[in-house]
């Protein structure tokens, strides 16, 4: 309840339109004290409280806020998962040593950080996610005191249990399980086992766990970005040791910067070859930080930096061959990595051949990191039959031809007339009807053309005169050198 026009202690409601009526979805603490309840019509609530402020309920914004909190809680453990609309589960197994805190320490720290952001967190620690969630939700100190509603099995099951005189989980736990399972199904025994810490349930973390990660906590928050690269270098040195031990090298490095106020900034760099050397990693991160459109805002300071290697590959530590590297030029891959980090991966390309019939699909741009493929050799003794540049889309031109299905004599393009001196054609390229039965298009007749200035063009007539079109149009598809 941070956002909105109303101050935190004012009564307000979040409403949504349901079946033509404005219904209250959630209420502020002050409004709850007035005796209002979620699910009421706004009109009914306003009858009680004429001054009740109403704001639009936006579940997607709530969800985004929850996910931001989930990311912020990754400072404790990478195993954090959102639970429902308003809760999250942290798996703290094995984390207390590196955190240098015990259970109550983590709970206190979490409560302090969340209340600083304006939340009223309910937190509990238990052996299983379900037990912890139930303890936090119902505000009880022990599992046996929990009401049967903590099972979360649906209203009718809870009602049936209450009618049978079973009001708490403790009463339920004392009874034999077999009759309960026979009456309420297997879900009952599973839920009870989860709740009583007899059987663990796995949680799926919001972000997948990186296989290799190292982190650095600061006693005092780092208020400027200046020492950032130094810390990254130090972390990269630690990551290198882990990578060396596995015989791997990182293809992708990611730095998470945890701000004291819960904001998490993430920077990632990719490399074309597996990297280990901290100097290389830092060089890429320097490039990345310099290329940020809006620079890093340390705010009140970063108190935790985590470097993870989400993607890594085997490094072949082969011996250098004597007969290789004749040119003596440095390897291009680090340069391409750097340029890719600065200008984006979509800037760098390589050409790849494609076995397609239509000329505009015969080549394709692929990321520069991909392996170059060999191209077919041109036919000897022929002049270039394909242009150096292709227009995308083809440019419409006006053509004067002697006969409608003959070669062009003159053509006009961009307000200029070109007289055709030499021409060759047509090279007939049909629409690939053999690929899909229903798709069809006009046949193209391509002409190689040279005008009186020596400029060479690639023109085509779109459609066969007479049989396909009465008045086929002409297009300029490319220019030759």
């Amino acid at each position, binding site marked *: 309840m941070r956002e909105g026009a109303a101050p935190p202690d004012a009564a307000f409601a979040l409403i949504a339109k349901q079946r033509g009526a404005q219904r209250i979805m959630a209420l502020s603490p002050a409004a709850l004290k007035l005796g209002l309840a979620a699910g009421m019509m706004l009109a009914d609530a306003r009858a009680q409280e004429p001054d009740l402020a109403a704001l639009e309920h936006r579940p997607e914004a709530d969800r985004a806020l929850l996910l931001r909190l989930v990311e912020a809680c990754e400072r404790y453990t990478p195993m954090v998962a959102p639970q429902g609309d308003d809760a999250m589960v942290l798996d703290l197994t094995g984390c207390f040593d590196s955190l240098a805190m015990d259970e109550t320490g983590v709970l206190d720290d979490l409560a302090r950080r969340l209340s600083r952001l304006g939340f009223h967190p309910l937190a509990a620690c238990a052996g299983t996610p379900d037990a912890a969630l139930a303890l936090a939700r119902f505000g009880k100190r022990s599992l046996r005191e929990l009401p049967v509603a903590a099972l979360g099995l649906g209203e009718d099951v809870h009602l049936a249990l209450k009618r049978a005189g079973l009001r708490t989980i403790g009463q339920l736990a004392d009874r034999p399980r077999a009759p309960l399972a026979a009456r309420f199904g297997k879900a009952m025994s599973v839920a009870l086992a989860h709740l009583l810490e007899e059987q663990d349930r796995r949680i799926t973390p919001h972000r997948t766990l990186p296989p290799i990660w190292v982190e650095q906590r600061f006693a005092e928050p780092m208020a400027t970005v200046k020492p950032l690269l130094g810390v990254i270098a130090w972390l990269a040195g630690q990551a290198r040791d882990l990578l060396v031990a596995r015989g791997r090298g990182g293809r992708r490095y990611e730095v998470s910067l945890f701000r004291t106020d819960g904001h998490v900034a993430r920077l990632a760099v990719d490399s074309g070859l597996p990297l280990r050397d901290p100097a290389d990693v830092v060089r890429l991160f320097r490039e990345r930080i310099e290329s940020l459109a809006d620079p890093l805002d340390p705010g009140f300071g970063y108190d935790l930096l985590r470097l993870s290697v989400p993607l890594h590959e085997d490094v072949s530590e082969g011996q250098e061959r004597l007969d290789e590297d004749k040119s003596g030029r440095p390897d291009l891959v680090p340069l391409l990595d750097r340029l890719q980090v600065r200008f984006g991966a979509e800037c760098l390309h390589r050409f790849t051949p494609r076995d397609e019939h239509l000329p505009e699909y015969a080549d394709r741009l692929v990321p520069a990191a991909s392996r170059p493929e060999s191209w077919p050799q041109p036919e000897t003794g022929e002049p270039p039959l394909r242009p150096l540049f292709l227009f995308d889309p083809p440019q419409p031109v006006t053509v004067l031809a002697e006969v409608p299905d003959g070669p062009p004599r003159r053509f006009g393009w961009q307000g200029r007339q070109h007289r055709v001196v030499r021409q060759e054609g047509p090279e007939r390229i049909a629409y690939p009807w053999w690929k899909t039965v229903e798709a069809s298009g006009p046949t193209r007749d391509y002409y190689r053309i040279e005008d009186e200035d020596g*400029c060479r063009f690639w023109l085509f007539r779109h459609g066969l005169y007479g049989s396909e079109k009465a008045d086929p149009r002409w297009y300029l598809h490319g220019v030759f050198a």
Partner: protein
Amino acid sequence: MFDSSRFKRAASLVQTSPEGWPDAPLQQDGVHEFYAAQGQDGSAALAPPLALALLCAVQARQPGEPLLWLRLAKGKQARQRPYAPGLAELGIDPAAIVLMRLPDLQSLLRAGVDCVRHGGAATVILEVDGRAPAFDLTASRRLALAAEQSRTMVLIVRSGADPAPSAAHSRWQVASAPSVPLPADAPGGPVFDVTLLRQRGGREGLNLQLEWDRERGVFRAPLSRGRPALPAVRTGDAGRRSAA
């Protein structure tokens, strides 16, 4: 004057040097500009200077060395896209080329300097369209210094601009020329009309017609049909031009 010891490798534009033609027209560690010749109506064909630059780069490179080609992702240039089968038809291996498409001229120049300084590519080709005030004397000097340091050839292809002062080692103006017709009056292989506008410490104003011979990987004078090239004619020397 030239310091010939600095020429590690030279791309020879022509096989035999005619009178007045520089020994090594394209110095390996230099910056060279290829201007698109402007027609009377101001139109400039980008393909001829670019093809000539690519072919020079291919001649200068050794097998296995990559070639970097930087162009803008937006603007007039981007409407025509490089067509890899066309490159292959010219005898240029498209697999050797890394194409960079950059958002603006500033990034293009910055990336260009980085590429040249790195020295991993044999040749870096920069396509600069229009007047491009950002590409000034300082920018070209920076490229020239980097080229000298890393022994990288820098080829700048300019279209839609008048030749402007720069730190380039040589400056050429390139246009298409009528090709040698094939049987049935079909257009032949690419022929370029090349004018040497400026050469540091060398002659200027040479004019030359060059035909690219893909099979042998050399330039030759058109109509010579494989005979040793006798191409160079100084501008204004009409008598010898007709003899060629």
